[in-house]
């Protein structure tokens, strides 16, 4: 039989038992509409969530990783720590391991320190100096107004955040007169004192470096060690973005760690000022970091990667975390609803199977006749499979229609129990959310699914039909 003939005969068979066909289709329709509507609630939440993530001012691909508090940690005077056996530690190897998680673009330790800068008569007390791996800085998604990011091989190089320069003030003046205290003026409107990209600059870890009015190293009286400072080059200036980078000064993590070491040694070990002055900077000891950052290639991976890192034994925070937790709760509720929808679809499938089995009983004689006058087994099978698939498909089609209507009603009239819980205002959510979202994909999938359910439910009845003995079938009344 040609496909056209099979379809033709199926339609006739369906029309012959109009009411039964209609009721079966109705069952599939209600089942499909139920599941589509339930899923549409979830999709709306997801979509809303996604849009919020996209609109967020922060970089949603960044994960902030912290070493958790571990009971029994021993702190050494040189700044290093000893952890109990078996504690996962945030060291270089671990950070390399983060980098190997699928979806991760880069990982770097993040060390914060404070340093003191001087340029001519101006000085800067920098509280937020961030040390990252120079090799990854170019991939951190930072925009520059001038210059470049840190690169491997740089010596005493820093990158200034867009408004980090505002920390410079004239030595000997009051902080209250400085630009940093001018909270009421938008930072972009404040004047520039130091052209950081071009002005000569020196850096030191010692506060006394900015207390005088010159940047010359001054051995102080009374056996107190002298100030040691270094020439520093500003290689780049970041474009304004948000609080997480605007007032930050970036530096290679190795360099910052060395400077930190220097201070610690200065404070703990070295009493003799002259010995101090001529001790070369030595490389840092194996270190456990407090904090690291991980950037993923797409914000869809953020939550998953964060979870993986948490499973490795660390704390992982990311900008959308609270929102994610809220959405996760909603997701669970909606999964319950979707399960209810799925049950109604299963009942519809049983309905199809029942209808088709009845059809086989009812048409036993016809099947026999067709076999005797030359129908192949495949013809019989196709007749029954197509009929059940069509019931599924039409049920799916009307079900999608019904769910579009239902979705419209939900979105345009107040259906109280379907409203999602309001998002807290402090999360910056202002948009009004529609509770239901039926996408073309969902419609297509529902249709396909309904058709497949029809096929599957029709399989056993169809097999039964093909197995009927032609002779027995033709004798049945």
């Amino acid at each position: 039989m040609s496909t056209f003939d099979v379809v033709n005969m199926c339609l006739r068979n369906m029309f012959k038992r109009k009411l039964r066909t209609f009721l079966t289709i109705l069952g599939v329709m209600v089942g499909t509409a139920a599941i589509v509507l339930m899923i549409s609630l979830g999709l709306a939440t997801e979509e809303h969530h996604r849009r919020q993530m996209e609109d967020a001012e922060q970089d949603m691909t960044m994960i902030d990783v912290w070493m958790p508090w571990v009971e029994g940690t021993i702190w050494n005077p040189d700044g290093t720590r000893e952890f109990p056996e078996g504690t996962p530690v945030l060291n270089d190897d671990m950070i390399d391991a983060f980098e190997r998680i699928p979806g991760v673009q880069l990982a770097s330790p993040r060390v914060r320190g404070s340093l003191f800068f001087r340029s001519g008569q101006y000085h800067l007390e920098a509280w937020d100096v961030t040390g990252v791996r120079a090799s990854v800085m170019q991939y951190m998604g930072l925009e520059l107004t001038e210059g470049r990011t840190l690169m491997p091989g740089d010596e005493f190089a820093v990158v200034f955040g867009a408004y980090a320069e505002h920390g410079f003030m004239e030595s000997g003046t009051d902080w209250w007169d400085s630009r940093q205290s001018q909270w009421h003026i938008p930072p972009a409107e404040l004047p520039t004192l130091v052209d950081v990209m071009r002005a000569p600059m020196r850096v030191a870890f010692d506060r006394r470096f900015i207390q005088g009015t010159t940047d010359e190293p001054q051995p102080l009286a009374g056996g107190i060690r002298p100030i040691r400072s270094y020439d520093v080059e500003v290689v780049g200036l970041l474009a304004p973005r948000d609080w997480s980078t605007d007032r930050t000064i970036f530096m290679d993590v190795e360099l910052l760690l060395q400077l930190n070491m220097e201070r610690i040694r200065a404070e703990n070990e070295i009493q003799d000022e002259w010995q101090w002055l001529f001790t070369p900077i030595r490389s840092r000891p194996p270190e456990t970091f407090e904090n690291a950052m991980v950037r993923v290639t797409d914000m869809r991976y953020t939550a998953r990667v964060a979870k993986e890192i948490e499973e490795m034994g660390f704390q992982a925070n990311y900008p959308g975390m609270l929102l994610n937790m809220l959405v996760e709760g909603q997701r669970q509720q909606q999964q319950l609803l979707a399960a209810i929808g799925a049950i109604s679809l299963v009942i519809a499938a049983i309905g199809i199977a029942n209808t088709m089995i009845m059809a086989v009983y009812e048409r036993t004689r016809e099947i026999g006749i067709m076999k005797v006058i030359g129908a192949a087994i495949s013809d019989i099978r196709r007749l029954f499979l197509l009929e059940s698939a069509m019931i599924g498909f039409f049920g799916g089609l009307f079900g999608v229609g019904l769910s579009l209507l239902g979705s419209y009603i939900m979105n345009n009239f107040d259906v109280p129990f379907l409203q999602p819980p309001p998002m807290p205002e402090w999360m910056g959510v202002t948009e009004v959310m529609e509770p239901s979202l039926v996408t073309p994909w969902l419609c297509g999938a529902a249709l396909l699914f309904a058709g497949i359910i029809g096929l599957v439910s029709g399989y056993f009845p169809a097999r039964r039909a093909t197995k009927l003995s032609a002779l027995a079938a033709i004798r049945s009344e």
Partner: protein
Amino acid sequence: MLEAIFDLRNVRKVYRMGEERIVALEDISIRFEKGKIYCLLGTSGSGKSTLLNMLAGLEKPTKGSIIFMGKPLEKLNEKQLALYRQRYVGFVFQSYNLLPTLTALENVTLPLTFRKVKRRERIKRARVMLKAVGLGNRARHKPSELSGGQQQRVSIARAFINNPQVVFADEPTGNLDTKTTFEMMDLIIGIARERQQTLVIVTHDTEIAQYADQVINIRDGSIESITERKAITSRSEMESENVIDGGNNNEETGV
């Protein structure tokens, strides 16, 4: 001797009914020739229908072989049997067996539909066939809108549309009154003769047996006798009592 269409060799059929074994056919060997009209005559339970079913490939013999044009039917699988019935066999049933959802025309086209003949072509052939059985103006009617005789005409048209090698008629007139019975027999015989098709009629009615070239009497599962005779081609001939036993020809005699 004409070419054989069926050659039965020691065919035996035993049904198993629980513990009991019922022998339906006992060691049958018989030859059917192409283009002749056969009548399997016997009382109910004699095994004549079983024989027909085996010829049609609806049942398999317990023992022995049924050779159809050189090929043993009992060796074919379901798929091949479907093809065999599709290509070579036509069927007329006692209870017409039309599909109630289809019109007369569609019922007639059904065997062609299974053979994947193009729609236009099969409708053309079905119209010719319906006209030949005298139902040219009933093509669009459903079986439920036709009388018994008309339904049987549709079923005859359906049996012959395929131009089959052999047509089986199982008590084709069992549900019809005497007048219609002979109309129907005249029609079947006429078409079969015209197309020189082999026809196997199963009946218990000796009057119908007169239409056959060869009457095979079956009793208790065995062939009791085979009678070669000069067949009649219509009712009018039968009424003139012009029946000669032992004749061995199948001349076309004008109506």
